[in-house]
């Protein structure tokens, strides 16, 4: 789900408030009043730089967790399992892993005349979402509105 993508969570009890992550990322801020670290969930892209920099392992990626809002609404946040898939871009095309599709960057690439290829995760059996996930569908629908259908390709 796009509007409340929560790729990283913080365990504020384990956190030593060293604020290395704050200095690394604009999406993380420190609340001095309450002595807490906050993650801007809407802007975070889940790059993982904060996770790898945290000395006390308080920051963790969220995998395969479903947040249930109501009976009919479920939120599937970040679904990457760090399979090691390489992000690739050249003059002709841009390749995303289906679980790390960045819609802004993808549409901008189409604007620049590139093809967008969405490939499946290398560790496909470990993740639960299908390759044709919500985001890929949304991407396709947006491009369809512009009458562009041949620029995005989903590959196994």
């Amino acid at each position, binding site marked *: 789900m796009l509007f409340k993508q929560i790729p990283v969570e913080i365990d504020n009890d384990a956190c030593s408030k060293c604020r290395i992550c704050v200095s690394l990322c604009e999406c993380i801020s420190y609340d001095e009043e309450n002595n807490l670290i906050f993650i801007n969930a809407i802007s975070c892209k889940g790059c993982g730089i904060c996770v790898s920099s945290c000395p006390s392992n308080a920051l963790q990626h969220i995998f395969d967790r479903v947040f249930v809002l109501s009976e009919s609404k479920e939120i599937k946040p970040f679904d990457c399992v760090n399979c090691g898939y390489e992000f690739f871009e050249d003059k002709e095309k841009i390749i995303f892993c289906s679980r790390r599709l960045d819609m802004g960057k993808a549409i*901008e690439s189409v604007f620049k005349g590139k093809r967008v290829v969405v490939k499946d995760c290398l560790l496909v059996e470990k993740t639960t979402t299908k390759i044709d996930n919500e985001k890929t569908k949304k991407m396709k629908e*947006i491009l369809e509105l512009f009458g562009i259908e041949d620029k995005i390709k989903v590959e196994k």
Partner: protein
Amino acid sequence: MTLEKIIDSSQVFYCVECRKCSSICPVTRVYGEFSPASFVERCLIGFHDEILHSMDIWKCLECGLCESVCPSGVKFLDFMREIRNMAREKGNFGIATHEGVFESIAKLTTKNDIKEGWIDGEIDETSNIAYFVGCLPFFDIIFKELEINAKNIADSTVKLLNKYGVIPSIIYGCCGHDALWTGNKELFNKLMEKNLEILKKKGIEKIIFSCPECYRTFKMDYPEMDIELMHISEFLDKNMKESVKGENEKTYTFHDSCRLGRHLGIYEEPRNVLKKIDVEIKEMEHNREMALCCGTSSWMNCDWKSEEIREKRLEEAKHADVLITTCPKCKIHFKCTLSHKNYNLEIKDFVEVVAERIK
């Protein structure tokens, strides 16, 4: 443009340091370190580089509350806009929400046309009265889970226009509002050129808007045109002569969006129309000129503090069952908060409410 010139053109040096702006700013209330007054002060003292590289400049909501209380007429919104433009040149882009998808869509709009035929209703492509849809088609896709029903807003608008004898031609496209307010003037100019070309080609004499942001941009930021511009509430207020009776089981309240209210000064027209269709409004504590913002603007900087601003606004609407807003973006933002917070409230667009009553 240098910062000195920006200070000149936006009359920032008129500031008398009364700090009324900081005391009323909705962002300052939740974000202690952001303050319009100290911003102006720092700029006047000469911390130019620090300002251009700070992330604080992206926190401003451009709601215009500060300008409405300023005793010396500092044009803070113009000041902010120019500073953002300069910051962009220095490589400070801010944090865009939703992965920057809306900026990319705007960029793509300059190159490709949006497919027609999205709206149901009577449409005449040769008509010289146009309805500017804006980015409504994309809201339905990107915020699918929130059930924004943007198509219903557009359909209702066309239905109401048809009812009062207008068969409009439809203009799809991006007005460039978000590009302008995030300091991307280059993109804004491209979008403006494209829109003006379409208007010229179609020979449009009158445009009707359902989105206050498009209306503001066409009216205040585009060069002067020989075209009549109208918001749907103004159109209905002018053309609706009859009054309609309806059941009033629910309590309604009205949220003035910043762009239609403080920027354009349209407060009474939508209220008049709602009175005509027998919808009684119980006003919130802050209404009209003092209305609070929905917490995010131009798809920038949405975090847990923005959520707090939204919750404050929704807290004020607790006495009502339905919150009527004129701006589709306000609808999106409130619906987002409603999706994970417990409020017994329904968010509806102004045109949806009117179209439901008028059969």
